[in-house]
């Protein structure tokens, strides 16, 4: 928002404070991330609290496989998004499109992996959200993470479309970077989920 209106004289952006109004996207995104962190924290606490307390099977150790591919995809996407941004700042729109697309593909890869995992859990292992406490906490936590990945992908795709239609310019790097914060956050949540869910299952 802010960069787009920077050229407009006499607009809102005039009231520049010490932190600078051009920083409001960053502060806003940071605030959102704080709220999201405490949201996920509660699901993580619930998962840990109920770990091993399910009255009936299946237990995490019996059904969970370490999602190596998915994890690599998501972690890698954090790297590619950073490269894409660097390209954008350097004015290389082509590079940006390429790496941005890579990020989206990696994110989509992660989602596919999750979908496969769920398919197996539900149809072959018979674990649903209503099966036991493990199912309840597992699907909620992993599901909310996947939901965030999906939302992130939507926004990334939106930017990609804009870029392909030539609507994205190096001046938009700030906004795009803020979006990338969100993506990094989603990635960080995955690291937490990975440790809490998959490492404890082994």
């Amino acid at each position, binding site marked *: *928002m802010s960069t787009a209106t920077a050229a407009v004289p006499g607009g*809102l952006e*005039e*009231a*520049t*404070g*010490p*932190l*600078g*109004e051009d*920083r*409001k996207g960053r*502060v*806003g995104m940071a*605030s*959102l991330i*704080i*709220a*999201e962190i*405490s*949201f*996920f*924290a*509660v*699901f993580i606490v*619930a998962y840990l*609290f*109920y770990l091993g*307390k*399910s*009255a009936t099977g299946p237990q995490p150790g019996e059904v969970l496989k370490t999602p190596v591919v998915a994890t690599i995809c998501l972690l890698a996407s954090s790297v590619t998004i950073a490269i894409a941004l660097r390209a954008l700042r350097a004015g290389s729109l082509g590079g940006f499109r390429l790496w941005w697309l890579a990020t989206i593909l990696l994110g989509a890869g992660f989602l596919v992996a999750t979908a496969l995992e769920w398919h197996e859990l539900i149809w072959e292992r018979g674990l649903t*959200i*209503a099966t*036991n*406490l493990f*199912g*309840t*906490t597992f*699907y*909620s936590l992993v599901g909310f993470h996947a939901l965030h990945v999906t939302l992130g992908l939507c926004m990334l795709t939106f930017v990609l479309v804009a870029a392909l239609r030539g609507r994205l310019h190096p001046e938009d790097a700030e906004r795009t970077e803020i979006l990338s914060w969100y993506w990094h956050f989603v990635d960080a949540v995955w690291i937490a989920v990975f440790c809490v869910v998959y490492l404890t299952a082994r």
Partner: protein
Amino acid sequence: MAVLDRSLESSPAESSARVPVGSILHDWVVTADHKKLGLMYIASGLVFFLVAGVMASMMRIQLALPQNDFLGPNTFNRLMTMHGTTMVFFVGMPMFFGFANYVVPLQIGARDLAFPRLNAFGFWMFLFGGVLLYFSALGSEGLYGAGSTPDVGWFAYAPLTSRTFSRGNATDYWILGILLSSVGSTATAINLVTTVATMRCPGMTLGRMPLFVWILWVDAILVLFVLSPLTAAQVMLLFDRFLGAHFFDTQAGGSAVLWQHFFWFFGHPEVYVLILPAFAIASEVIPVFSRKPLFGYPIMVAATICIGMISMSVWVHHMFVVGLEPGANTFFAASTMAIAVPTGIKIFNWLGTMWGGRIRFRVPMLWCTAFLLEFVLAGLTGVILATVPIDWQLSDSYFVVAHFHFVLIGGLLFNIFAAIYYWFPKATGRMLDEGLGRKHFFWFVLGFNLTFLPMHVPGLLGMPRRIYTYMPGRGWDAWNLVVTIGVAVQAIGILYFLWNVISSLRDGEPAGDDPWDGWTLEWATTSPPPEYNFEEIPTVRSRRPLWDLKHPEDPDWRWE
């Protein structure tokens, strides 16, 4: 700028009266202006307050006599739940966001909040959430075929909220209403945090921010931290009820106590979310009417931050009776009592501000003065409750009900009234009537004390809360009767207030830009302020920019 007299006839407030109603309505619905949204928050908060107040009055009629049958158990429980839920989520919260919306940008010399459209979104989420909650009265299929509002109490303890014990949709309405409005509140909190962080006018360093802005800033940050855990817990409950999940299902190994942890991890900070704006208002009104700067500004900021942080580590004091380990009880007793220290600092600093001043007891100041005394009493009953063994007796008794009405009314509501009297002239260009204001003050404070002081006693005599009836002869009868009479007296006060607002809107005395001889930036613009707040963005050199202009011989910036 020319110093010219402004004739009221041509003020925008007046001229808009000639515009058709539909178009005015349209203006308000599509607005992204922080002032309009602020007023809408406050107005809807007031409406919800009246509704919940009427519900409280009905409960009190039922409780006036033992074994009364004015209301049946189901009706009573629904009124009780809706009263508490409404007062906390749909009165306290919108008042916070309303005053924050209206005043913060003006005080920091900004034109609007950081994200004006998000602000509108937040407001409408809040309002529609409330509408959905109240729609349960029509839409929810209750046990007896009739519509039924939620009846599980405002903290909805599991497993009473499970499908087994709460059939129909009433509880789902409770979950969704709060869930949706919380999304709006989170959005608005993000907005406020960002606004204060990035949109202060030149010269307004953190140390020069009015304390009002400081406190609301801390408050908004607190909301970020604690509201989403509630959202998460509500989502879990929703999963339990709709997808057969087992988060709080005690039959499948789920834990009833976990819900309490999640709820109170939000619930306790929430009460500070509610009281901090009251502190903010007092910190604005008391100095102006005592004609002195706030005593000990830095330590007030520190105390605010302390309160914010400590408040996240005390939630178990609502759970002293669930049978936790003595170690846990001891720890949370300590943290709860610790909060008395920063709160005490605030009280004493306000007293220090009044000390040696030339206090003008106009209506806003009257409310703040009454607040000081009532709040100390309320806080002290809080400390009594924090004394764990005493809480074993008094938890869930009418003593607790008296405690929290004292903080919520004597603390929060009194200051909301102060704020309304203080900023009404700014927002409308007209003063509220002083005489009616004094009547409102007198009757309401009298009624409040008549209601809630005696209410402590039945609690001490063993009367639990949330009972729709009680046996005669337990020593509670007379006290309950007095309490109910007190409500009638309060209602007289409220009627004076409503009359005051309505009549002053139409023909109150014109206010002028700066009716209270104030010191913060909002008094440097017109009443009501133009859409863009300031023609030119001001620059400040101290915490009291207007003092500097009014007293060039003795400006604040020489001392700060």
